């Protein structure tokens, strides 16, 4: 097994039934821009508008849906620089420092991931955005100062080229586009 999930996938485990899965599969592509988007989903799923709304609401409460709303594209809006900043945090400090770093709005991801020694010693991954590289570096300094990270090893990986960016597709058989 190549991908080893050492932790439960969802702490507050919500059991998704077939109707939830069908709904998830449709809403990952976004709501239609029309008067009654939930009713339109309902027509495709043979659900009432009320059922669609209450199921989405439950998925949000269960944190299956992390965020529900307008999904913007940073790059197109002038936030053209982003860096993946990776930190080597002592294991016993991750649960303290992770939430500290995750609270900034220019930090759009803050994940603990496994180290892959010796090639890869970093266990905390943050995605930090800015209007340009200078702005990103300024944000990293702010983060390090606020959370007390000065002694810790980190690397800044700027993106130099975007080959592909779109929402995830969860329910589709393996294949090539």
């Amino acid at each position, binding site marked *: 097994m190549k991908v080893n999930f050492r932790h439960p996938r969802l702490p507050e485990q919500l059991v998704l039934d077939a109707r939830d899965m069908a709904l998830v599969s449709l809403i990952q592509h976004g709501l239609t821009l029309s008067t009654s988007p939930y009713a339109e989903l309902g027509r495709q799923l043979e659900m009432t508008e009320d059922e669609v709304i209450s199921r989405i609401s439950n998925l949000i409460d269960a944190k299956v849906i*992390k965020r529900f709303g307008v999904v913007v594209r*940073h790059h197109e809006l002038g936030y053209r620089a982003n860096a993946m900043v990776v930190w080597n945090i002592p294991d016993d400090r991750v649960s303290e420092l992770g939430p500290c770093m995750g609270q900034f709005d220019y930090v759009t991801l803050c994940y603990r991931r496994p180290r892959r020694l010796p090639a890869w010693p970093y266990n905390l*991954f943050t995605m930090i955005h800015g209007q340009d590289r200078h702005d990103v570096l300024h944000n990293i300094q702010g983060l390090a100062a606020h959370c007390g990270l000065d002694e810790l090893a980190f690397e800044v990986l700027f993106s130099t080229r975007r*080959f592909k960016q779109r929402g995830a597709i969860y329910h589709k058989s*393996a294949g090539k586009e």
Partner: protein
Amino acid sequence: MHRVNTDMEQFSSYQLSDLERRLLNDFQHGFPLVPQPYQKIADDLDVTEEIVISTLENLQQQGFISRVGAVFRANSIGASTLAAMAVPESQLEQVAAMISGYSEVNHNYQRDHDFNLWFVLTASDEQTLNAVLDDIEQRSGLPVMYLPMEEDFHIDLGFNLTWT
């Protein structure tokens, strides 16, 4: 109406109106779960539903919005992982294109590092994910470093856009 240029606006000579800015910034989370959500937004912004819908359509056409909808927590449904490869410069273009070709790959970036290609894979289950990882290794002849998320510390309230 007060208008300020962002870098992007100067670049594309597209100027965002106040209404466009509010639609981009204020509804990234907590989107109305009511039968007519765009009408609710229109009421909040003191415009018509028609204007809200046509403005969102235009923002989507311009590429500023990818969609109006859900961002799912990683691994809450399906299985996903970040993966990285150290690809020789001469093969980078070709390997990157090969990886972008998988429907399971939703992000694929070149980054300044020995590990110079970084991508995110998402599939309906771990088995599919592993099959794709194996396939990529086989086709490229290069090892893939896979880094699944173990814990999420970020509370996603969207991205606060500031225009300077």
